[in-house]
């Protein structure tokens, strides 16, 4: 991998993903589970858990990179716009730095909704083991 390399994927926040994440996290906050509650605070429906995107990042690190011998070192994610059920997000990760001395890659990440609205942005650092 080298600086500038890009990795892309589409992720759909399906009913299955929402239900499973809700069960896994045990986060049943009404913002995520009660439509009327979410609308009261200005959202157009139940807001999907932000850390569902964290799970998508886990897929990126574990399954999308050319090497499997990788470990996640750090992750930062800023949530800019809400995600709703059945939204499809286009994910892009770009290599922005490589620390050769310790085999660490830094990626800039973005999640966007159709129409190019940015949902979340952040960065992740991974180490190639061995």
């Amino acid at each position: 991998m080298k600086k500038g390399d890009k990795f892309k994927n589409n992720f759909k926040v399906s009913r299955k993903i929402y239900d499973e994440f809700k069960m896994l996290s045990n986060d049943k906050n009404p913002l995520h589970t009660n439509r009327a509650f979410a609308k009261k605070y200005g959202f157009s429906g139940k807001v999907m858990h932000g850390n569902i995107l964290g799970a998508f990042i886990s897929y990126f690190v574990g399954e999308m990179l050319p090497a499997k011998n990788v470990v996640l070192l750090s992750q930062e994610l800023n949530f800019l716009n809400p995600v709703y059920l059945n939204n499809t997000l286009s994910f892009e990760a770009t290599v922005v730095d490589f620390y050769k001395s310790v085999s660490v890659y830094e990626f800039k990440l973005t999640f966007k909704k159709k129409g190019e609205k940015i949902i979340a942005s952040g960065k992740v650092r991974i180490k190639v083991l061995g």
Partner: protein
Amino acid sequence: MENKIILKKVNNIFKDVLDDKKIKINEKTTASDVQDWDSLTHIQLVVAIEKFFKIKFTSSELIKFKNVGDMVSAISEKLK
């Protein structure tokens, strides 16, 4: 940049990475002197130092560092 100033900046990086405001390193400090300075933390420290000073080490340079002082001297050389 003087070694004394580099050491102070490296100390701040240690405090930040290890999330411990009480850390006080000196030129003789090694990993065994600092709680939580283990292999993964070491990687985070190297990345933070390279990023802060805008320098790059090689892996062979890293292996030669016996203490913080060696790293500070290497940083100083790279900043010249």
